[in-house]
């Protein structure tokens, strides 16, 4: 789960990482209230989970309530790379002497943690990594032993942070590491970590990705969830407990297992179609899960044909078939569906499907044939819609 900046700052604050005083606003009036609380001058910041806010005009400085009102009005509702701004973060503007960078994440190649610190913060770190890799100090940290103060000190020294920032930066780094590990984050990043003219170090931005697998031991994460940024289709799928990712095409895809679901999207693409989504019904899915999946796909107006690709391991063929029959009885499925069923109890499943087969419900023996049929149907129906 990716956190918005304001949530990330709230999370940082729990671990003692210094952040600016500020508050959340969903309206221009709220923005003024928050600005008065934080004290002028303030920064009005768009809350979207995409880079490049500043360039798009989503971050503005305001010296008084009129300016806050004016900026809040222009930023709320703004479209930044496809993300509509619904919420603002208003915080007291900081004087900046220097901008640094700090982060922790997992290095999958070494299977250790990677800590990174740079004196060149405030800009895209990937660009720094490309143009001047030496400007980023890196440290491999053994997850079985953790980060020591000496190691944090080494990172800060190695990165060449200004001498007056070093003690504060070491402190912030140790707290950021706690936030990363104890806070069960996949990624914590501060860019920029600033030094103020009076010698204080604090986080001016916050990027935090939480590990969904750890949510069972973090009941406090629930408050982050309700305004999660999903598209409508993803929200519906999530409410039904399905693994769903919305894509741009016209063939609705349902498969069991992440690998097979990805592979199904690929095969649709290879035979000239475009997948409308990735949907994994998981292992051991019941008839009910299958019916839910079909309802989610059915709610997507861009879907012109549905491709159901099941290879039963734990998932049983007759359960899948029963789910399709259930769904057909429960809602009107708008698009024709093509089914490929193999593996555990596939014969029983195919026998059940025989009873509902029609021009709209087709069976195909292989993944490739089924993909071709579904893509053909989608093209035909899209063509029809244009006329």
């Amino acid at each position: 789960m990716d956190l918005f900046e304001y949530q990330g700052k709230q999370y940082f604050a729990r671990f003692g990482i210094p952040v600016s005083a500020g508050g959340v606003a969903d309206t221009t009036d709220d923005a003024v209230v928050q600005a008065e609380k934080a004290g002028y001058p303030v920064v009005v910041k768009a809350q979207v989970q995409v880079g490049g806010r500043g360039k798009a005009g989503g971050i503005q400085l305001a010296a008084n309530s009129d300016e806050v009102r004016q900026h809040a009005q222009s930023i709320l509702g703004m479209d930044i790379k496809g993300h509509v701004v619904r919420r603002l973060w208003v915080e007291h503007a900081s004087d900046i002497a220097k901008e640094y960078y700090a982060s922790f994440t997992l290095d999958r190649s070494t299977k250790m943690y990677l800590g990174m610190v740079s004196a060149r913060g405030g800009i895209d770190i990937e660009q720094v990594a490309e143009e001047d890799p030496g400007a980023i100090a890196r440290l491999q940290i053994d997850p079985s032993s953790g980060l020591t103060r000496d190691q944090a000190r080494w990172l800060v020294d190695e990165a060449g942070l200004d001498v007056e920032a070093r003690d504060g930066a070491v402190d912030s780094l140790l707290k950021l590491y706690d936030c990363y590990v104890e806070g069960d984050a996949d990624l914590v990043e501060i860019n920029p970590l600033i030094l103020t003219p009076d010698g204080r170090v604090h986080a001016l931005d916050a990027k935090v990705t939480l590990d969904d697998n750890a949510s069972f031991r973090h009941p406090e994460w629930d408050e982050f969830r309700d305004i999660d940024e999903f598209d409508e289709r993803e929200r519906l799928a999530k409410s039904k407990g399905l693994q769903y990712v919305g894509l741009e095409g016209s063939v609705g895809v349902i498969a069991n297992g992440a690998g097979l679901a990805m592979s199904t999207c690929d095969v649709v693409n290879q035979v000239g179609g475009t997948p409308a989504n990735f949907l994994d019904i998981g292992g051991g899915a019941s008839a009910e899960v299958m019916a839910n999946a079909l309802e989610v796909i059915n709610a997507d107006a861009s879907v012109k044909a549905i491709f159901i690709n099941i290879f039963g391991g734990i998932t049983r063929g007759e359960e899948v078939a029963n789910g399709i029959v259930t769904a057909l009885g429960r809602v009107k499925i708008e698009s024709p569906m093509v089914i490929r069923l193999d593996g555990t109890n596939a014969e029983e499943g195919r026998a059940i499907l025989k009873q509902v087969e029609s021009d709209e419900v087709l069976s195909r023996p292989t993944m490739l044939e089924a993909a071709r049929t579904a893509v053909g149907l989608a093209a035909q129906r899209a063509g029809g819609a244009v006329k």
Partner: protein
Amino acid sequence: MSIFVDENTKVIVQGLTGGQGRFHGLRNRAYGTNVVGGVRKGKGGEDVEGIPIFDSVAEAKAATCANASFVVVPPAGASAAILEAAAAGIPFVVCITEGIPAHDEARIYNVLQRQHSGTRLLGPNCPGIISPGKCNIGITAGEIAQPGGPVGIVSRSGTLTYQALYELKQKGVGVTTCVGIGGDPVPGTSFIDCLAAFEADPETRAVMMIGEIGGAEEEKAADFIAKEMSTPVVAYIAGVTAPPGKKMGHAGAIISGSKGTAKAKMEALAAAGVEVAQNPTEAGELMVEVVANRT
């Protein structure tokens, strides 16, 4: 021959008394796997359909001489179960648990590396391992695998592993061992571990490798294949159409920045002399050709 397991492997099941553990443990035994015991603290002395239950892995090992453990324990307890098996000196641990926190996985991996280097962990979040006709630890339906070789399979995805086994069986091609390494970011056993074991196995004369988007393990495997392997490899990579920044079901299946794309992985493998298929069916067909050329 097979890798990691064979007909002499003696398996205990940690979590045999739970719903999933019972179902898969008994299914593995029915396949012919030598399941010698189960572990559940507080239930020592009981049995599950004749399989004795022990309070700890150490007791189970002492009583049964088990040399493998199948961990079927929910995410919150899985790390402790794996470490218990390692501390008891079990050399091969298969964990199918899905949803273990990433920090737990990273810690387990590094603790095993530094303190229990004699233990190999397969998984977590994997379908397990099957050596057809000899031993099946995990959740793979045994009947879709044809015994006898000459193909070894290593895969990051569960259902694509079944698909691969099935494609080969349809074509009459047997499998020495099929290893599902799992789709999480920190797998205990890597592609390279399996490729090296297959290379050393005289009965495995070709390897099918199934990868997916995310990470750089396939690229590292390509490097290993180019430098260290004479056994031919056929590969398939899922996720060509996956968008950057979205997790595609598996925690590890995510394209971050410009890294981890299916295209980059396919190019790296092709450059290493691997036959790269565009879909699972083609992978099966390519494998039939490779096997025919080698015999």
